[in-house]
């Protein structure tokens, strides 16, 4: 009876896991998948074998399938021409916002800070330079993403051009991340011994580093996938 209870608990966990499927898939197959999982567990118990390894295998297998299903949905969404227009607008808005920050608040804020501490003003100007380099890299990556969308629209998503665009995005994201790390180290060195609270800027830097590494990882995965698709096509000219 104890195993019956364990199975029920596993089934509940499995149901939780299934929530990560795309909605259509979950509504259509969720119940069936739960039942199948239940049946597999019961079969294991009847054969008097351990449930744990089965549960682990099914969970891992289902997680992989969830990632695959969601990736398919995302790819379909991107392949849809309508949505590339939407993505173009989003990219353009982000670019305009970034430019606006660079032109107005950033220099003004830096000038204000520099005026407060004229002796160490050069340190703040170093930050300004770093921020502008990052902004340039960011805009460059956005431009590459824009180019990638236009390749998709022209049905050239799986071409060397896309691979190159993705590689550029990856490198810019990596460079931004490295600059963030350098910035964090710089802040830590400067604030060491002064007793100033630098947790805020460091936290911001860490978030930025995390975000840019995620972007770099996604770009790297897409790059290898596109490259793989191109290689397969080369092998089968049909």
């Amino acid at each position, binding site marked *: 009876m104890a195993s019956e209870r364990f199975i029920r608990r596993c089934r509940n966990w499995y149901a939780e896991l299934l929530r990560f499927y795309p909605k259509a898939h979950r509504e259509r*197959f969720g119940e*069936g998948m739960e039942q*199948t999982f239940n*049946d597999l567990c019961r079969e294991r118990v009847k054969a008097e074998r351990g449930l744990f390894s089965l549960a682990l295998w099914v969970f891992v*297998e289902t997680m992989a399938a969830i990632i*695959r299903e969601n990736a398919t949905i995302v790819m379909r969404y991107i392949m849809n021409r309508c949505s590339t227009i939407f993505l173009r607008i989003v990219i353009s808005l982000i670019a305009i916002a970034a430019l606006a920050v660079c032109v107005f608040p950033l220099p003004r804020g830096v000038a204000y800070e520099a005026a407060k501490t004229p002796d160490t003003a050069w340190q703040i100007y170093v930050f300004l330079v770093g921020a502008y380099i990052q902004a340039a890299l960011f805009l460059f990556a956005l431009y590459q993403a824009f180019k990638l969308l236009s390749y998709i629209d022209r049905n050239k998503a799986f071409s060397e051009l896309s691979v190159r665009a993705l590689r550029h995005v990856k490198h810019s994201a990596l460079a931004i991340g490295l600059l963030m790390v350098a910035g964090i180290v710089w802040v830590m060195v400067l604030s060491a011994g002064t007793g100033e609270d630098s947790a805020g800027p460091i936290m911001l830097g860490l978030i930025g580093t995390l975000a840019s590494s995620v972007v770099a990882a996604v770009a790297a995965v897409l790059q290898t996938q596109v490259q793989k698709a191109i290689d397969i096509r080369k092998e089968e000219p049909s």
Partner: protein
Amino acid sequence: MAKKITNTPLTPAVLHILLALSSEERHGYGIMKQVESESHGKVKMGPGTLYGSLGRMMESGLIRESDKKVDPEMDDERRVYYKITELGKTTLAAELERYREVVAVAKKKQLAPSSFAYGI
């Protein structure tokens, strides 16, 4: 359409599911067990692969949902049964024909070395 079917090799999962459903309609767990026994335990499909394939196969019209009913051999839960369609049957036949051709070629090639072997 028919031409398109003969040109596309099926994935192993799809082929096995079609084979399992070719004799009778089955529910998810039933398909899994049938595939396992037909492949002598070599092909082990998890629910993720199984239902992912079922979804894609329904989209392309190879199978369809049959009734939702109780399996008398299991318990009193109602399960969705899946059934092969006509398109599914022709696709399976075309795929098996492809395999038959490949096996025929392989057999033909094996004849030559074995005849030499007899000579030694």
